[in-house]
């Protein structure tokens, strides 16, 4: 039976790991390669690196980081942030990433998803979606959550699947950084709607939150950052807890 995945996410800015609350107030959280190695040893099932660098110069550092991480880590990893062309995807994959994720770029150019998927395969095409509830509708946001669009989340997720996404990484901005649990209702609805796997992100604060996101939210993977970086929830303990409570995880 396929296991549920636990995925630490490393937000990268200028080569360092950072983490903020509600997309703001960035705090330094350590050397990404050191963290990546520790997570792989601790039993993380995958890693996600999100480059949140603001400038082009800072963004160029990602290739070198991908290269170093790939040399050391024996589990799959995804790289996202600022990816807007198939050329960049190729460069990241050639440096050793297994998957890439696109977010804002897919909104400006949805056919990019089809292009990447057909060139490199759906297995490496993750579409990241940041959304927030506005007047009872889940609205997709771009630019790290700064700009609202007029696009509705579930419609968008379906469209991404049709265009060749291999996986959806859904972050609830309402839950991100709050440690009050994942957006289980929206996740469950999305899971029933799509046939591709869904990574849940935003809101992880306790072991129970992960149990809920797999049971109620029907997510295929749970992603979190700060609770892992600051060792609030060690991954081996989290996985043992999930196993004891009937969730199939890799121990």
């Amino acid at each position, binding site marked *: *039976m*396929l*296991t*549920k*995945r636990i995925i630490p996410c490393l937000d990268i800015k200028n080569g360092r790991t950072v983490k903020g609350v509600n997309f703001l107030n960035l705090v330094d959280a350590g050397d990404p390669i050191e963290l990546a190695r520790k997570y*792989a040893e601790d039993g993380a*099932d995958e890693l996600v690196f999100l480059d949140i660098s603001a400038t082009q110069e800072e963004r160029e550092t990602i290739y070198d980081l991908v290269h170093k991480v*790939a*040399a*050391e880590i*024996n*589990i*799959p990893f995804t790289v996202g942030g600022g990816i807007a062309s198939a050329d960049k995807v190729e460069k990241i*994959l*050639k*440096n*050793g990433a*297994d998957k890439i994720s696109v977010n804002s770029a897919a909104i400006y150019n949805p056919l990019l998803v089809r292009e990447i998927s*057909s*060139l*490199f*395969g*759906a*297995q*490496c095409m993750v579409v990241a979606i940041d959304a927030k509830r506005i007047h009872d509708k889940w609205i997709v946001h771009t630019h790290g959550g700064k700009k609202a669009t007029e696009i509705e989340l579930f419609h968008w997720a379906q469209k991404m699947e049709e265009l060749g996404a*291999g*996986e959806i990484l859904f972050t609830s901005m309402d839950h991100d950084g709050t440690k009050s649990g994942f957006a289980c209702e929206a996740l469950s609805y999305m899971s029933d709607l*799509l*046939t*591709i*796997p869904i990574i849940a992100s935003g809101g992880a604060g306790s072991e129970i939150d992960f149990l809920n996101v797999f049971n109620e939210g029907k997510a*295929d*993977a749970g992603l979190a950052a700060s609770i892992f970086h600051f060792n609030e929830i060690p991954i081996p303990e989290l996985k043992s807890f999930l196993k004891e409570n009937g969730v199939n995880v*890799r121990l």
Partner: protein
Amino acid sequence: MIVIIDYDAGNICSVSNALNRLGVDFVLSDDKEVIKSAEKVIFPGVGHAFAAMEKLRAKKLVSTIQQLKQPVLGICVGMQLLCDYSHEGNTEGLGVVHTDVQKFDSSKDIKVPHMGWNRLRIDDDSSNLFNGVLTEDYVYFVHSYYVPLNQNSIASCAYSLEFSAAIKHENFYGIQFHAEKSGKVGERILNNFMNIDL
């Protein structure tokens, strides 16, 4: 020398990194003579079966691979291409293993691709590929197409149905999972392949 076939359709970098971590000497090559003279050959593949097969044809490597006598390890799409035919893009394969590669049926309440860590069931370990690996150990899969169980299956995995996690025909081995991304279990399997003596 170990040769990784470099035909622009592989996860060359991941495989190279894994071999580096194991301390194995290898070269990347699309040169027939280099491939033929290898001690062992790794045939990686990600992406689309049709596109991968087209690239093999463009590099005129089809008959070279078919005629190899040393141990060959096809990984993921590399394994699928060892078969007769793939429904992914409806392409002929290399025809080493006589079966068709099928697509998972997403209407059967499963997510497709089959993506993540799943359990191996080792059905035949006479080849030593799974030395030190246990049935129930987890390995990492990412694929939408699968090789059905057949007389060449040596390990299986369950995902709505049972399919071939590994196949073997004479000197040809295939693994559907990404050993190079499967943690310590994967490293063990790659290392076992390096030590296979036909």
